[in-house]
């Protein structure tokens, strides 16, 4: 349905996005993950026809959209990271303006405004000015404004940044409903791995302007099939003990946590007895030992050497 072909953007000879290939099938929900500065927003802006790529193409149903993005814009809804609304206008007035800009017919627009307000759970607050809304409510209206023309494809750029849990849940539910019930194709970027895990069938992981991994959640997890992540809870913290663990056979990475240690080790390791032995020597008690099911966060850490929020 929508794909990018070797999409590249350079600013002053610096490649911000480097030959990205990604595609979205109709009805799919796809996640785009990456730390700050990975190039996610630039990629989204190019897909949405707001920035002209240095090279490469964006295709809708096999047809290039670079020269004439008109067809793409008709079927595309974009929720930017910023609150792209007029603070001095009410929720209703904002939606009415953007609805008219989308050329939604007058009578249809009135109905559609109520539908999208209902979808984001702010129907009863529609007459209030945006500037009086909480951050979460603003983000919900930000989404509503992108849905007025009933888009087939919805791109959301970190739509849950800095908001309360209630609004966050509401937004996640809205996106899920749009995808599952209305069949809207979703491209979702976020810092929050659990949101992507919860919402998306497929994930692209970006770093330094490049796609470094792609696949379904299970496929990405399999990257870690040769490794185990072990959480160890200790009676006290000790640098000497941590250093000792790092030298044990089969241990790949050791990270100190609040409770103790998080160890990345080779699959089929024989770590427990060595760990107990080392703890006894240091006079430390092992309170808990758990082999964790790997998450996308672990995959990300494995691939980039940093966490998503770095």
């Amino acid at each position, binding site marked *: 349905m929508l794909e990018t072909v070797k999409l590249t953007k350079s600013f002053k000879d610096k490649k911000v996005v480097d030959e990205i290939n990604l595609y979205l099938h109709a009805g799919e929900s796809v996640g785009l993950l990456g730390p700050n500065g990975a190039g996610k927003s630039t990629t989204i802006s190019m897909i949405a*026809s707001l920035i002209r790529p240095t090279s490469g193409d964006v295709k809708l149903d096999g047809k290039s959209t670079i020269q004439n993005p008109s067809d793409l814009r008709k079927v595309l809804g974009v929720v930017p990271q910023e609150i792209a609304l007029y603070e001095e206008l009410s929720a209703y007035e904002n939606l009415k303006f*953007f609805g008219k800009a989308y050329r939604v017919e007058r009578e249809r627009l009135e109905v559609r405004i109520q539908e999208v307000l209902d979808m984001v759970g702010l129907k009863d607050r529609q007459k209030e000015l945006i500037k009086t809304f909480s951050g979460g409510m603003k983000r919900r209206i930000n989404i509503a404004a992108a849905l007025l023309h009933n888009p087939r494809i919805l791109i959301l750029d970190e739509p849950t940044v800095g908001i309360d849990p209630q609004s966050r849940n509401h937004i996640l539910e809205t996106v899920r409903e749009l995808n599952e019930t209305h069949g809207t194709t979703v491209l979702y970027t976020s810092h929050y791995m659990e949101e992507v895990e919860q919402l998306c069938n497929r994930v692209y992981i970006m770093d330094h302007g490049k796609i470094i991994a792609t696949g379904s959640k299970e496929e990405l997890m399999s990257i870690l099939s040769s490794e185990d992540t072990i959480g160890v809870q200790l009676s006290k913290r000790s640098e000497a003990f941590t250093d000792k663990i790092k030298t044990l056979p089969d241990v790949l990475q050791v990270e100190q946590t609040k409770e103790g240690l998080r160890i990345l080790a080779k699959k089929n390791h024989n770590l427990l007895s060595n760990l107990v032995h080392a703890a006894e020597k240091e006079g430390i008690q092992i309170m808990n030992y758990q082999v964790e099911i790997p998450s996308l966060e672990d995959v990300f850490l494995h691939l980039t050497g940093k966490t998503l929020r770095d």
Partner: protein
Amino acid sequence: MGAFIYKDLLVFWRNRKEILMALLLPILIIVILNFAFSGLFMDEKAIHIDVAVVQEDDLKKGKEQFAAAVEAKDLSSQEKNAVLAEAARIDPVQLIHDFLNSADMKEWVTVKDLSEREAAEQVKNGELDAIIKIPEGFTDDSLSRLLLGEPSQGSVSILAEEESREVSTLQEVVHNFVNTLNMQFALGSKGFQASSEPVLPQGGKEVVEGDDGADAYTISQYFTIAICTLFALFMAQTVALKTITEKREQVFNRILLTNRHPLFFLFGKTVSAFILACMQFMMTLAAVQLLLNVFPDKTITFWVGLVLVLMAFALTVGGLSALFTALTLHLSDSNAASGISTLIIMGFGALGGSFFPLEGLPEPIQKVGEWTPNGLTQTALIEWVQYSHLNDLMFPILFLAAVFIISFAISVSIFPKRGRS
């Protein structure tokens, strides 16, 4: 496009601070300037003063003294006869009496003739404000000064129990009269009449200019026109600089994504600025006319002409707003766009005479100033106040329309075409 215009007007309307700045501040400034520079509190109708004229001079004796003085002069008998004949026609004391009892003076001065003792007593009791004392020998002294060019020995004096605004005004008026009288004789204008116009302080209607048969325009009219045009220029910037927020908050991009041609955004700004400038003019003029009666006794034709020129200027404001909007979107640094627009407005304001009259500046600067939109509008409107020649409005209106077309054409040429950068 209606949605874009409505949105811009609504956004402006919801910002109370901007409304105060754009719609009420010009009215306030015009009123304050009017009070500060026109001496509104010195309105002649508000002043009334009771004075006594104490005459110690004797006309007959004075003329005899003057005749003796002429005889003693080293002049031919023909010259002596001419001077004496002229002196026979002049009665300096009567001139002062006629002046004090003229129609203009009667509006604010009540005069009665009293002896010095009576007058002093009434001033002390508060029944009178001042005494105009015509000293002994005034006739001789005045004639010697006027006709022989002798130095003055004594003059009319004004005495009062205490210094007051009324007394100061009277002093100023009487001294102006005496000086005018002296000057006219010195220039050889022998046809001096007591009915000559007294130079009066005209509170609230200070005359700025008025010659070659033109009606005078007042300082209040100047301020009204200057402040109106200046604040309309600010309006162009106010509307355009909203684009900075719209750009920063991605609202502009969201508009682009609706598939509307980006020029709708520019048209919206242009028309909104035009409408807001018109509203600003109408509100300011209505309020100032109501409060200060800045344009008294003007005909419908005058008002139509005024509105036509201001609407043409509002069109230019729309064009400038389009230019500033396009600059904001064209330049990656919004502060630079804001700086350029401020520079243009302040330049127009200063050169066009919106901050101060250009009369005192060098000729070339005045000429340049007259070609700025606000400068031309001011000149056109002041001439309209003075002459009311309908033909004189054609050029300024066409010029302002041309400025709009040029500004708008530049805006369109630098405006982002399809939202791709």
